[in-house]
Every structure is written in structure tokens, then in C-alpha cells.
């Protein structure tokens, strides 16, 4: 009943064209090892869903893995500046940017969580976002006849969530901020956890009040220490400033491929005990 599989196997289940929700937020706890392995396996035409993304979306856009991005905000934070590859990909028409209001990503995922086709959003009232995007529509409330804006559900095929601890059955613990990860685990058809540490039955019993995602929602567990690097992972490591700056200095695809390849051993695991997992 163990759900622990190797990173390559987990990524192998991702079909080109999938809608993928990525956990974490901007520079924090993004599932980067999974993202890099998707690039190694040359996944294509992905639709990425996240309230606020940074390096994950930028890297996937750089390697032409992305067709659409549904997000409220895509940018590195102040000191690292704007996401060069995402911008270029959108500006060239290679990637379609479905701009949301962060909250409307949340609302669209809540619709998926409850299996309804749309979610009403009270705050979205004015502006070109409603006009230009077919996933927003204004209807008449049947109870009061007032106008109300609806956002269409986004049902991710899979949510990829990086956590500090997870047991082999999929009981996952997120230390520190959870961002939209818990919601994503309820909205997606499948859930894959990448984790810093496989928790023992004893540990998970001690920490049962902290289980954010119970095992029966989880399809696969991948053990990847440093799996969020170069983004931060609370209680484990901070942002890898050197790596991020190196990446942001790279221009062409082959250099970026080299950057991704440098992580291969770390992502896939080189320890014998890790390789023996089926």
C-alpha cells in the first residue's frame, strides 16, 4: 500500500496537455524538482494553474513546456525582478496568459473542489479582465435580479505539492504557510506529493493534528530532499540566491537545459536506498 515511487515514474504519469496546479507561492515551496523532471521528460502544452508563480512558471516557459498559464501574478519578487521567459513567451504568443485576480484562481479551484461548474465572485465588478476573458461571465442573480460575476471552474488534472513531511501512504504535513496547496489537493483529479522527508508511522501519529492532506486524497509520494530548491522550504532551507541569479542570467535554451541537468542527480536521488524504490 506504499505510494512511494521515483520521481521519473511520477512525472511519467503526466500527459502532454495536462492542467497542472503547482503548490507553493512565488519564491516559496514550489515543487521545482518535479518541474525540472517535466522538462527533462520534454512535457508539452501544459496548462499551469497557480495564484502567484515565479521560477516554476518562468522555467517551464523558457523550455517551451507551456501552452497556458492561469494565474493572478507571475513574477519574482522585488530583488529578482520580472520573469524574462514567461514575458517573452506571452509576448510572442507562444503562451496564453489567462489573467486572474488570485482570488478568482482560488474561486475556480473551490468550484472544482465542490464539483460545480462555476463559482460566484462578489469582488470582481469592473474592468477589462471580465470583458476579455471568456472564463468570466456576468449573469443575473435569480434571487435578487442583481448582476453577479461567475468564474468558470478550473479542474487540475493533477496537483503537485512539495511538503516537508509525508508518510509512505500520503499523509502530508506542510510546515509554515500552506498557501493554496490544501485547496489544490481537493480540487485536482490526482495529487502527487514530493517531500523532503518520508515520515515514519510513529512521527505521523505524533503529528496527526498537522496532517494537511490525508492519505486517501494522494496518488503518489516522491521522496525528494531539496525538492523545492532554489525556492525556499520552511524549516529546511532558504532561497538559493546563487542558483536563482545564475538562472536569471541565462538566455538561450541550451544553457537553461544545462542548468536543469545540473540538478538531475539531486532531483532523482543518488542514494542506493532511494534507487531501490520500485
Amino acid at each position, binding site marked *: 500500500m506504499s505510494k512511494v515511487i521515483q520521481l521519473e515514474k511520477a512525472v511519467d504519469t503526466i500527459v502532454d496537455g495536462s492542467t497542472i496546479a503547482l503548490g507553493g507561492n512565488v519564491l516559496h515551496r514550489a515543487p521545482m524538482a518535479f518541474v525540472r523532471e517535466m522538462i527533462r521528460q520534454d512535457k508539452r502544452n501544459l496548462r499551469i494553474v497557480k495564484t502567484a508563480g515565479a521560477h516554476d512558471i518562468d522555467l517551464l516557459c523558457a523550455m517551451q513546456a507551456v501552452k497556458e498559464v492561469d494565474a*493572478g*501574478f507571475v513574477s519574482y519578487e522585488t*530583488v529578482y525582478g520580472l520573469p524574462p521567459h*514567461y514575458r517573452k513567451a506571452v509576448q510572442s504568443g507562444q503562451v496564453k*496568459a489567462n489573467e486572474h485576480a488570485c482570488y478568482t484562481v*482560488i474561486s475556480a479551484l473551490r468550484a472544482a473542489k465542490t464539483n460545480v461548474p462555476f463559482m460566484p465572485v462578489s469582488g470582481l*465588478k469592473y474592468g477589462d479582465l471580465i470583458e476579455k476573458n471568456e472564463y468570466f461571465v456576468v449573469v443575473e442573480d435569480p434571487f435578487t435580479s442583481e448582476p453577479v460575476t461567475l468564474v468558470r471552474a478550473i479542474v487540475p488534472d493533477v496537483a503537485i505539492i512539495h511538503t516537508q513531511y509525508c508518510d509512505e501512504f500520503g499523509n502530508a504535513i506542510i510546515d*509554515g504557510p500552506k498557501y493554496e496547496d490544501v485547496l489544490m489537493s481537493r480540487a485536482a483529479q490526482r495529487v502527487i506529493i514530493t517531500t523532503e522527508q518520508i515520515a515514519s508511522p510513529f512521527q505521523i501519529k505524533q503529528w496527526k493534528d498537522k496532517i494537511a492532506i490525508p492519505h486517501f486524497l494522494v496518488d503518489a509520494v516522491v521522496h525528494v530532499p531539496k525538492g523545492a530548491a532554489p525556492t525556499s522550504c520552511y524549516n529546511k532551507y532558504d532561497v538559493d540566491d546563487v542558483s536563482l541569479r545564475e538562472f536569471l542570467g541565462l538566455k538561450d535554451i541550451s544553457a537553461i537545459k544545462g542548468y536543469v541537468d545540473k540538478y538531475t542527480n539531486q532531483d532523482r536521488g543518488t542514494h542506493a536506498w532511494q534507487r531501490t524504490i520500485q
Partner: protein
Amino acid sequence: MAANDSISDLMTCTIANMLLDGETVFHGVSSQMPMVAMHLARQLHAPNLVHLNIPGGVNPSSVKKSSYSSAGADLVELGEAYFPLEEIFDLSMRGKLDVAFLGGVQFDINGNVNASVIGDYEKPKVRLPGGAGSAVLIPTAKKAIIWRTKHDTRTFVEQVDFVTTRGNLWKIITPLCVFEYRDGKLHLDSIHPHTTIEEVQENTGFPLLYDEIRYTKAPTTQELAILRKIDPHNYRAAEFG
């Protein structure tokens, strides 16, 4: 023009003075300046201000760890309780968020905000990071404050390229001045002591609306002293690069 550090101190103190005791106040990512301003307000006149942020740390006791991010785990670790982004949005929808800090790249005199694209939405000349929470928070927060560390005619334009959202702004603060939005128009509220009305007009793409020229209050010695204590690494100036 004054040095960036002194401008960012002035902006931070001015923002702090916009906040009232007991208000619920939210900032998002890349928001070091408002984050520091909220802490300054809490140290000064607003000890019961409720500081809300994306990771969900209510009233973090310090922001000294937030070196590169205003959305990191340090805010939760140092917080009094957990109240994450989803809940903050819901709170604002219910009309219970007093103040939201938001960004934007283009603004016009009619209170239109653009954080989305320069050029066409489908095939933009420049894809901007996006409005984040703006499109739902500006219409619902009791007071929406925009801060912007650039003030030029590309920022304050005759007409924005794209309306990410509009209306219900309260204040916009820049390195040169403070605008107030009322009766559907941006009005000049005050200009900073280090500038002139001519300089502000020169850098603004629409005619300034004002009755008289008021000057923004300069930071007090006490404000500056506390500012240096709560933000010793000067994160508040991060956006000045």
C-alpha cells in the same frame, strides 16, 4: 531630487500615517515598503492594527527576516495566529478588510489601474506580472492604497492600455506626491517637500487637479529612529533597486 533612501523613508512614514489603530490591513508580494510601514504604525499610533499577509501570519512580531520576500514563512513563524490569503480575500469580500496595499503600472486620472499589459491583451507588447489581488480587492477593501516607486509619464498616463480594475482607490503614493481619488478623479493630495508642482506635473501624463498646494509632512526624528530599528536592513527601499 532627494536621495532614494530619504524618499523611501518619507514614503514609508507617510503610508504609516494613513493607517488607523484597529484597522485590518493587508499587503501582498513584493510589498516590503507597506509591510515596514504597517510595523511602523503599530509601533507608533496603531498598536491594535491587524497586519495580514499572503502566508497568513497575523501580526508578525518582526519583519527583519523578510529580506527578499513579503510572502515568506517568517511572517507565519513570528505571527500570533494563522489567517491565510484565501481567508483574507473572503474577509475583503464581506467588507471587513479596512486597508489593502496594491500595485499597478499605469494609472489615469479616472482611477483606472493597469497591472496587466502594455499594448494588446491577447498579443501584448509587454506582459506585466498581473494585478494579483487588485481586481477584487480595490472594489471591496474599505481603503485601497497604491504605492509606486516610479513617478513618470509612462506610469501616470492619459489613458491606461488595459483596465485591470478601476474605482474605489483611496490614495496613491509615489516618490513625488500623494494622490487622492474622489468624485471619480485623482486629485493631488500633497506633494513631497523635496519636489515642486512643476516637477510633479512634468512627470504626470494628465493635468493635475488641485485647489492649493499642500506639502507632505516630513518624517519626524522619532519616526525615522523607529524605522531604522524595525527595518535595519532597509528592505523598504528594495524597490528603488
